[in-house]
């Protein structure tokens, strides 16, 4: 394996770790807002690492730029989505802790 392959391997593994973190957060965190936090940050970081790893494998600048565009878009869209969901939940529940989300389980 060449050094570039090692870089892809390492960055990909870090990316996978963050994806795992995102999924665990989504499953284990107690309320909506912390889950939102886990999901939108960890997953996009994971995607960023995977994209960064793949950049070592791409032969052309255009492909690399497209990968970066995909990641940038994902960041942009999911941060806005996070804001929209959070705001929506906040206005619905009226508390900053997502109490309604908690209560709904009982």
């Amino acid at each position: 394996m060449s050094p570039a392959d090692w870089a892809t391997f390492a960055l990909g593994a870090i990316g996978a770790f963050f994806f795992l973190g995102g999924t665990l957060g989504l499953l284990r965190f107690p309320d909506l807002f912390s889950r939102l936090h886990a999901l939108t940050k960890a997953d996009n970081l994971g995607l960023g690492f995977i994209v960064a790893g793949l950049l070592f494998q791409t032969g052309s600048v255009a492909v690399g730029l497209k990968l970066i565009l995909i990641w940038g878009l994902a960041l942009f869209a999911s941060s806005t989505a996070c804001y929209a969901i959070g705001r929506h939940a906040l206005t619905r529940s009226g508390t900053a802790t997502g109490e309604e989300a908690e209560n709904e389980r009982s």
Partner: protein
Amino acid sequence: MGIFYIVMTLFLLANMAAAMARVFRGPTAADRLMTAQLFGTTGVGILVLLAEAVPQPALRDVALVFTLLAVLVVLAFTRGHTGQAEEARSRGNGGDA
């Protein structure tokens, strides 16, 4: 290198499958929607990896379209205030998921 991509995609797919539990459990509509978002992000990860592994450059375009359209569902949801009222109603009827 090929096996690395496949193991990575397999891992991401397993993540997706595990996250499904959140759609089942809810409890709020926003939770379920977030899981759909996670499906999208993970799917993009799988697609860019597959594009390199197969190799099939067109999959990067699929990933691009995925990311472009992912936010629409969220905005349709948050603007419409759907689900929340619905979940509340279903709890009233004892029909929890």
